[in-house]
Every structure is written in C-alpha cells, then in structure tokens.
C-alpha cells in the first residue's frame, strides 16, 4: 500500500520530520508543507537527513509555502521536487492513503 | 458602523475605521473627513497620502511620534511637528488621518 506522508512542522522545532523519515516505508512519498518546507532548504544535519531520505523516499516540497517564507526554489536540496497545489492533489490521488505528521 | 457612497457600502468598526483597507478610495476619504468635520485641503492630502504609502511599505499605521518624524524628514521641519499636524487633524493625526486614509488604528495608539 503506497502512502503519502505530509510534514507541516519545522525540523528544528518539532521531531515530526525525523519521526516521519524513520517510519516511512521505502518508496513512499513525503511532502513538506507549511513550516515543514524549511527542511528542504536547511543546512547542517537536516540537509544530511534530507539527502539520505531522498535516496529511498520520494521527497516533495510545496512551492507556494516555500515562496511565502521567502525561500527560492533554487535553494532546495538535491533530490527534492517542487509541486504546486495541483501537484499536491495529484500526489494525494496517486497514493492509497495520506499520513499527516503534525 | 458603515459609510455609504452612491449605494456602495463600506464596512467600518465602531470607531469608524474601515475594515477592508483595499476598498478605500478618495471619495471615501472625503466622506470620512466630513464625518470628522474636516475639510480636506492639499496639506491634509499630503499627510493622508503619506500614510497610505507608509502602510503600503511597512504594513502598519505609524505611531504619532514616528509619523511626525517621518513627515518632517519628507516635507520639511515646519511640518514635522505636533502643532502643524494637530492644526490639520485637531483630534490627533494618528486617530483622524489614519481613519481618513483607511488605515487601522496605529499600534500602541492611546
């Protein structure tokens, strides 16, 4: 069963992002939204965790939430793809279930 | 409360500040001024337009002290003082000029 995981908290503030990466099955999708998008543009440890995750999971980030926070799309980590609201809907539709990490 | 011009209604709070800053226009400013018993002159418009620009740039209505200083910087010392601004807006430039400009009440306004 394929799953779409969404993370809406900053990786520096809550451990939702880490828990999601720990428990998400290989091959499932992770979409970073709201304050979760900071993970896609971070440095240091978080950048390493994103790089590691993108090798076994499909990692997406919601473009409008990046733009709201002043983060340019050219700063996001390699292996992370940007989607718009339509892409969010497509992802939800393409997977059997959505798991929200709050 | 609300203002009405040619059948168009503009919602305002109980003190007369309009609730939708985007709905503001010069005709509405004249009407609010009339309600405040102020006849708009070029000098009044100078302050009102300055407030509109300030809000557009900073997303807040300035405190009186900040407004006074900024007006002085832009239009000269003879205008950057309370005496001048109160001569235009007797009940306080922050209160009346912001209301006419369609801005919210300044933060920290007492």
């Amino acid at each position, binding site marked *: 069963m394929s799953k779409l995981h969404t993370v809406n908290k900053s990786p520096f*503030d809550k451990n939702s992002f880490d828990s999601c990466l720990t428990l998400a099955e290989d091959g499932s999708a992770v979409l970073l939204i*709201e304050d979760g998008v900071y993970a896609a543009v971070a*440095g240091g440890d978080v950048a390493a965790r994103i790089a590691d995750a993108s090798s076994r999971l499909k990692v997406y980030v919601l473009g409008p939430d990046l733009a709201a*926070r002043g983060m340019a799309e050219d*700063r996001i980590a390699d292996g992370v793809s940007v989607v718009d609201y339509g892409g969010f809907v497509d992802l939800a539709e393409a997977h059997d279930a959505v798991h929200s990490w709050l | 409360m609300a203002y009405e011009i040619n059948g168009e209604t503009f919602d305002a709070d109980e003190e007369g500040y309009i609730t939708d800053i985007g709905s503001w226009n010069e005709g509405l400013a004249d009407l609010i001024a009339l309600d405040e018993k102020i006849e708009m002159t070029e000098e009044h418009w100078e302050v009102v337009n300055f407030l509109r620009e300030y809000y557009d740039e900073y*997303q*807040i209505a300035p405190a009186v002290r*900040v407004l006074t200083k900024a007006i002085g910087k832009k239009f000269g010392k003879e205008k950057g003082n*309370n005496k001048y601004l109160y001569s235009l807006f007797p009940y306080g430039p922050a209160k009346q000029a912001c209301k006419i400009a369609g801005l919210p009440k300044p933060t920290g306004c007492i």
Partner: protein
Amino acid sequence: MSDLPPIPPDDEDEFGVVKKFCYVNRKAPYGTVYALESLEMVLIAAAFDQDVSVVFMDDGVYQIKSEQAPEAAGMKNFSKTYRALEGYDVEKLYVSKESMEERGLTTDDFLVDVEVLDHAALSALMAEQEVVITS
C-alpha cells in the same frame, strides 16, 4: 472649540521610566501567531520610548528572511514591518550565529541589518536586560 484635546509636546518625556526590554523570537513566522504578536509588543514598547533589543534565534531567524510572499497563501506579509523598526528607533537587532548557520542562512538573507552574535554573546546580552520576553 473647548473640547479639543491639548496638543502634546514634540519631545514627549511623559513616560519617565525607561527599562531595557529584550524580545527573544524563537518561532517561524507563519505556523503560529507568536512572531506577529511579539512584533506588536516590540512596536508598543518602542512607542513608549523604551530601550528595546530584539533577538532572533532558533526558528525565529526565519522571521526576517527576505522576499517573503505569504499573500498568495492568504496571509498578511508582516515581514515588511520589521523594516519599520528603524523609524521607531529600534536598531538593536541580533541574530544567533549558530541558529543562522544551522539553517543554511547568511546575513545576506535578512531584510534588515542585524548583528550576528554567538550564544555566549547572546547570553551576556540577555543578562544585562531588565525585562526579557521570549516567544
């Protein structure tokens, strides 16, 4: 008209007591309302001529990231208001070096001029304040 309020003097000295206030911002701007509320507290303290310092640390450094555009997501762009602080004579803005670097940010990313301090320097700064409000 006799009911007109008196015209206040230009250099108001009526607030008398000036305290050292330090506002420490630790939250990202849009996920919660803390950042906006803290900014309003800063403006009010400044309007009362207090000696105000503002610290951005942890996710609070994201509050002053340049080029924020939350309007499309239906939120007010209050990041522009940080640039009004100079006009309110609030010029002591500090950023945690560790927090900035951990997030892959540099001083070029900020929409206001800040002084970057390491944790030891921030700790010393907070120690000399009379009121510290963290949010």
